[in-house]
């Protein structure tokens, strides 16, 4: 891949990225969330089309117009969320849509199973082709995906976080499979946040940052610390309006928050006027922890204390009545009703306060909304404009308005600036700052490290459903936060 660029409205996702892959090579791709790894792979697999740049395969230039083209050319992608049909057998999954047939259109089970055994043979695994996919473990499911790719005669495999759902032993088995693949001439692009794995399984590693190719090196010639430095090192271009804070009384305390398979024994506290940044990788459990506090997920154990008193929060309604607001990660899916107006969306949180016998006091609510919309500066032609027709930044401001209007004093922001332009970002930082100045306790979950570093009074780092680090402002640098987020300290300790 040469000079690949790709822009999305408002964001340059990839900027002249080069990547080469030798036969029988395992090439790792590292980078923070949003560095452009996924976009690059989507271009390679034909899902997106590059704005600039060329893809060359075996000395021939290819111009994919759809994913099918790249599959035919021998490139298969195994996504983190596997694309398997759970209630069909291993064999059926591998040959989905290409089942060998006998005369009369009946499926030729015998050939199919024999073919599957042949495909699985090099892995040295005992996997019954007739087993239903939902009954085999996640490592084997990966193998099924790999076998499917091989049956398509692919010789380039892209694996996106393949070990995310695997236990240590399962991961070892997968590495064995990958080594076998390499031996048979297959090249693998291996995307992972787990840098030790990269050292273990890859030949070379490339680091992307902010859509740019930073470095490519042989794994035996680069240390993990160097990789981390390449991942986070950046020029500070954005403005962070962070004012000196003056934290007051403790507002929210969480003790031993636990939910099976999500998080374990999470404890922390936030004071009034304080911004607590929560760093961590996608999938570390940050969002889930926040959802437990907000009552939108049920917890198995742990206490939530507000102003030192235990609060009984079992539903989102309880949380809101206790003054907790959650500005969710995915605003379109969780924050907004796109088909309804700005008025309807913003008023959702306050209708219970401003209605009489169920009838909405429309004028009262309109007054409130106009006031909030002015402070937040939502740019909309009118309150009856459908939210769908607003820009991303303005949509996010509608979500903020929705919670500002409610007068909460614990604000949980989950990725508040994702996908919005720089100008709107600064406005959102400023609003956050204002809230804190007014005495609200603020939790900011963010994958944007510089943002966390700049805006937080304290930083909690989450890894694998636990808080693995809690630092004061200025106590740590980006590299240290990143290495905690990657779980390096935990693994060394254990």
């Amino acid at each position, binding site marked *: 891949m040469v000079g690949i660029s790709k822009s999305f409205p408002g964001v340059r996702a990839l900027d002249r990225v080069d990547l080469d892959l030798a036969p029988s090579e395992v090439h790792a791709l590292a980078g923070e969330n*949003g560095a452009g790894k996924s976009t690059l792979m989507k271009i390679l697999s034909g899902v997106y*089309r590059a704005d600039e740049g060329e893809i060359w395969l075996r000395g021939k230039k290819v111009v994919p117009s759809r994913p099918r083209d790249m599959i035919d050319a021998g490139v298969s992608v195994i996504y983190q969320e596997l694309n398997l049909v759970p209630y069909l057998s291993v064999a059926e999954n591998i040959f989905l849509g290409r089942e060998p047939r006998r005369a009369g259109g009946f499926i030729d089970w015998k050939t199919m199973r024999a073919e599957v055994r042949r495909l699985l043979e090099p892995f040295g695994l005992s996997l019954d082709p007739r087993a239903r996919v939902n009954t085999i473990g996640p490592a084997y499911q990966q193998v099924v995906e790999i076998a499917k790719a091989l049956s398509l005669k692919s010789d380039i495999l892209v694996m996106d976080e393949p070990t995310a759902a695997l236990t240590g032993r399962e991961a070892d088995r997968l590495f064995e499979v990958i080594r076998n693949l390499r031996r048979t001439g297959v090249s693998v692009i291996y995307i992972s946040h787990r840098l030790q794995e990269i050292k273990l399984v890859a030949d070379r590693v490339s680091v992307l940052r902010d859509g740019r190719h930073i470095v490519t090196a042989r794994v035996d010639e680069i240390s993990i610390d160097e990789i981390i430095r390449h991942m986070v090192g950046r020029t500070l271009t954005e403005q962070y309006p962070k004012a000196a804070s003056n934290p007051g009384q403790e507002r929210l305390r969480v003790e031993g928050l636990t939910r099976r398979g999500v998080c374990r024994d999470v404890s922390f506290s936030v004071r009034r006027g304080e911004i607590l940044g929560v760093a961590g990788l996608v999938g570390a459990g940050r969002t889930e922890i926040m959802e437990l506090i907000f009552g939108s997920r049920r917890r198995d154990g742990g206490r939530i204390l507000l102003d030192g008193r235990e609060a009984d929060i079992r539903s989102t309604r309880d949380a809101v009545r206790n003054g907790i607001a959650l500005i*969710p990660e995915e605003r379109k899916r969780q924050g907004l009703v796109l088909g*309804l107006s700005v008025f309807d969306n913003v008023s959702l949180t306050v209708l219970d306060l401003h209605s009489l016998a169920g009838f*909405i006091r*429309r004028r009262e609510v309109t007054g409130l909304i106009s006031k909030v919309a002015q402070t937040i500066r939502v740019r909309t032609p009118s309150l009856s404009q459908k939210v769908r*027709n607003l820009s*991303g930044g303005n949509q996010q401001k509608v979500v903020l308005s929705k919670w500002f209007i409610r007068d909460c004093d614990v604000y949980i922001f989950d990725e508040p600036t994702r996908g919005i332009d720089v100008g709107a970002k600064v406005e959102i930082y400023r609003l956050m700052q204002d809230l804190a100045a007014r005495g609200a306790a603020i939790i900011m979950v963010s994958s944007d490290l510089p943002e966390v570093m700049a805006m937080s009074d304290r930083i909690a780092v989450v890894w694998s459903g636990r808080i693995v680090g809690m630092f004061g402002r200025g106590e740590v640098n980006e590299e240290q936060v990143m290495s905690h987020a990657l779980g390096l300290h935990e693994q060394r300790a254990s």
Partner: protein
Amino acid sequence: MKVEEGIAPAAEARSGRGVELARVLKNYGILIAFVLVCAVLAWLSPVFLRWTNVLNVIRQSSIYGIMAIGMTFVILTGGIDLSVGSMLAFSGAIAAGLLKAGAPLPAVIAAALAVGALLGLANGFVITVGRITPFVTTLAMMTVARSLTLIFCNGYPISGFSTQFRFIGTGDFLGLPVPILVFLATVLVAAVILRDTRLGRYTYAIGGNEEAVRLSGIPSGFYKAMVYVFSGVGAGLSAVILTSRLNSAETVAGTGYELDVIAAVVIGGTSLNGGRGSVWGTLVGALLIAVINNGMVLLGINPYYQGLVKGLILLGAVLLDRLRDEQGCGCGKTGGPAPEWGAAPRRSRVLQFWNLSGVWSSFCTAGVFTFSGVMSTGASCTFLFLMGCFLMKASMAATPW
């Protein structure tokens, strides 16, 4: 990935008279269709516009019209209620039983509504707490309530009531039949609820994005259950009118009504995905179905064909709705994956599909009309031509290019 699927402010991007026409057709398409059908029927049959016939049409529409109002709430949340016909039968049977036992009229009416509300509550409870899909839940209720009716009535209809009770279904008030007044009152009350109450606004919001509603600290389950209660109350109210009008509570009353009821709502422009629609649309939808039924009787079309024609009209309405959905931002209400970059323009495909299905259903309907031998070939062709023109225009309006 820090990427925003940019949404062009659609309203600003397009402008001009074509858009205005599109908007009118989109919002009032069903009304225009209704007027068209009425005009054609008035032309074909001299009886159609007579005052007695007009009243008759509206009276016929009120029974399932009232249920359709309750159903509008349900469908606005993205649900469905298949049990309305059976709930009607059971409410009617209870009301009839109470009447026979000598209960006073207000108590009887209250009981019928309460029975409907209870059955609806049961639906709502199972759907929200048991997390069973509305389809399955209300399908079960459909058979359960029917069975309850048979048990209660022991298989026989209960008939013969006081003139006082008969007045509800057959009497006139201020020169208008009582059922019509009840229907219109229901529409008005429902419109106010949808516009000015929390329940109404939440109904739209839940249909648009239930997750967002829940995350706004609203007990969405409660409100979702309430719409099924509304549907049940609608069935109870219809039961009173139907029982009164027939002077009998039949065990088979309301069988198959759910289809006409759902059809009225959908033809009225309420999206089956929820979040969009109005009771005014439902009012027109209910009237349109009544007019079509009436028209086919007036034109002497073999009743065997009625279902065929209604089915095709229903399909057409849903297709139109689908086009409207796709015209909006391509990402849908769940904010699903961004459309593939460089994917083939979708509009042309939609249009092809539309033309195909439009032509196909036109041919079918034409065949039905001519084959049934009642309408002359010329007349049916004219009718179809008019319908076709409308549908084509509507489809073009719904897919701007």
